C-alpha cells in the first residue's frame, strides 16, 4: 500500500520501500487543502513533510548575514532580492533571517542601502549578539 505522503513522518521517508511509494512519484505541498494559499503566511501553512519548507540548507553557509534592527529602514530590498525566501518580513517590517533556508549568498548585505548596513556577513560560528556588538560605525562619504 502506498503511504500517505501528505502526512508521513519525515524520518520515515528515507526508509520507505518500493511498495510504499505514491505511483508516479507525485509530491504534495500541503497536508490538507489550502483554498487560497496567498492568503496564508508561511508560518500558518499546513506543509506536508515533503515540502522543502520543512527542510534546511543552512549548513551550506560559510558566513551568515546578521540583521541589525536598529539601523533598518524596512526598504525591503533584502526581501525582494533574497533568492532563498530567507528574509522574514511581515506587515512591511523586516523581522530577520530564516537561517534554516539561508545559504549565505550575501545578496541581502550587498543590496542593503543603509549606512552602516543593517545586514552584514559574520562568521557562521559567531554569536549574533557578539556580531551586533562588533557592528561598524557609519562610513563617512568619501570626498572626491
Amino acid at each position: 500500500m502506498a503511504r500517505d505522503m501528505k502526512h508521513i513522518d519525515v524520518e520515515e521517508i528515507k526508509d520507505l520501500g518500493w511498495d510504499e511509494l505514491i505511483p508516479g512519484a507525485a509530491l504534495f505541498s500541503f497536508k490538507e487543502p489550502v483554498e487560497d494559499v496567498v492568503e496564508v503566511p508561511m508560518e500558518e501553512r499546513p506543509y506536508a513533510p515533503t515540502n522543502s519548507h520543512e527542510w534546511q540548507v543552512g549548513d551550506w553557509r560559510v558566513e551568515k548575514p546578521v540583521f541589525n534592527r536598529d539601523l533598518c529602514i524596512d526598504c525591503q530590498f533584502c526581501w525582494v532580492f533574497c533568492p532563498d525566501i530567507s528574509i522574514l518580513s511581515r506587515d512591511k517590517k523586516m523581522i530577520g533571517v530564516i537561517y534554516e533556508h539561508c545559504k549565505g549568498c550575501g545578496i541581502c548585505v550587498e543590496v542593503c542601502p543603509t549606512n552602516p548596513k543593517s545586514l552584514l556577513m559574520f562568521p557562521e560560528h559567531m554569536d549574533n549578539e557578539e556580531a551586533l556588538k562588533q557592528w561598524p560605525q557609519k562610513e563617512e562619504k568619501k570626498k572626491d
Partner: protein
Amino acid sequence: MVKKIKNLKEFSLSNDRFEGANLMCPGCSHNIIVREVLNATNDPVIVATATGCLEVCTAVYPRTSWDVSWIHIGFENAAVAAATVAAAYEVMKRKGKLPPATQKMVDEGREPKIVAFAGDGGTYDIGFQSLSGAFERGHNFMYVCLDNEVYANTGGQRSSSTPIGASTTTSPAGAVSYGEKMQKKSMVEIMADHGAPYVAQVSPSKWKDLVKKVQKGFEVYGPVYINAQSACTTEWKHAPEDTIEVSDLGVESCVWPLYEIINERDEHGIIYSTKLNITYRPKQKIPVEEYLAAQPRFRHLFKPENRHIIDLWQKAVDARWEYLQRREEAGV
C-alpha cells in the same frame, strides 16, 4: 485580477508560493525571478518547468519547493506542457468540471495563471520548436525564459544565447580562441514576430519593471513571452553577492535593455498595431567594458589580443540600443 503593488513595501506583503531549502546555488537569479513572477499575482498559478537548474533543484524527491501545482516533462517541451495545461483548463471550465476550489477562484474572477519556466537552452535551442508551436497556436499562458546564456545545469556549455567572447566549457577561451564566436540571437523579437500579444525583456534587479510586465502579461489573452536576464554566479563566475550588481551593470550598459513589444490584436487575432516601448532608460549609459569586467567569463577579453572583441561588443550594443530607440520613436 490585478494585484495592486504600489511600492516595494506593499510588494513585501506577498506570501511566497516558492519555498526555500531548494537546492539552487547561493545567489542564483533564477530564484529571484521565480519569486517576482509568482508574487506579481494573487491568482492561482500552475507551473511547467523545462529540464534545467530550476527543475533539478526544486523537485528532488522526496521534497518539492513548490506551493503551486508543477510539472516537469522534459528539456524541450515546457511550452507545450504549459500550453496544454491551459487548454485542459479551458475544456474543464467549459464543461463545468473544474475542481470546486478552482471553480470558486474562477467565480471570483481569479483565473489560474499558467506559467512555463525554462532556461535559454530549453528556449533558444532544444525547446524552440515546442515554444514556436505553442505560440503560433495562441494558447493562453506565459513563458518565462531564465536566460543565463549558458547550459548551467550540465556544466556550462555554450547555447545559442551565449554572447560572443564568453568562455564556456564548449567554447573555452584559449591560446588561439577568444571563446564563443557567435552573437546571441534576439529571442524577444523572434517571439514578438509570432504575433504574441505581449513580449518583454526583464531583469530581476529592476523588480518593479519585471512585476509590471508580468502583470501586463497576465492581463492579456494569449501567449506571453518574458525574457529574463539571469546572472549565473557559477557560470558567469561572479561572487554570489554580486548577482544584483552584475544584473544592474547589464541594464545600465544597455547590454540587457528593458523593453516590451505589444501586439494589439482585434477579436480575430489580426494585429492592428505593434509598439515597442523601452521601459527603462539608463541615466548615463555605462561602457560595456564595465559589465564584462565584472564577470570572469570575459576575463580573457582584456588581454591585448582580444581587446577588439570588447570594441565589437560596444559597437553591437550601441547599434542595438539605437535600433530599439528608433523602433520606439516610430511606434512600430
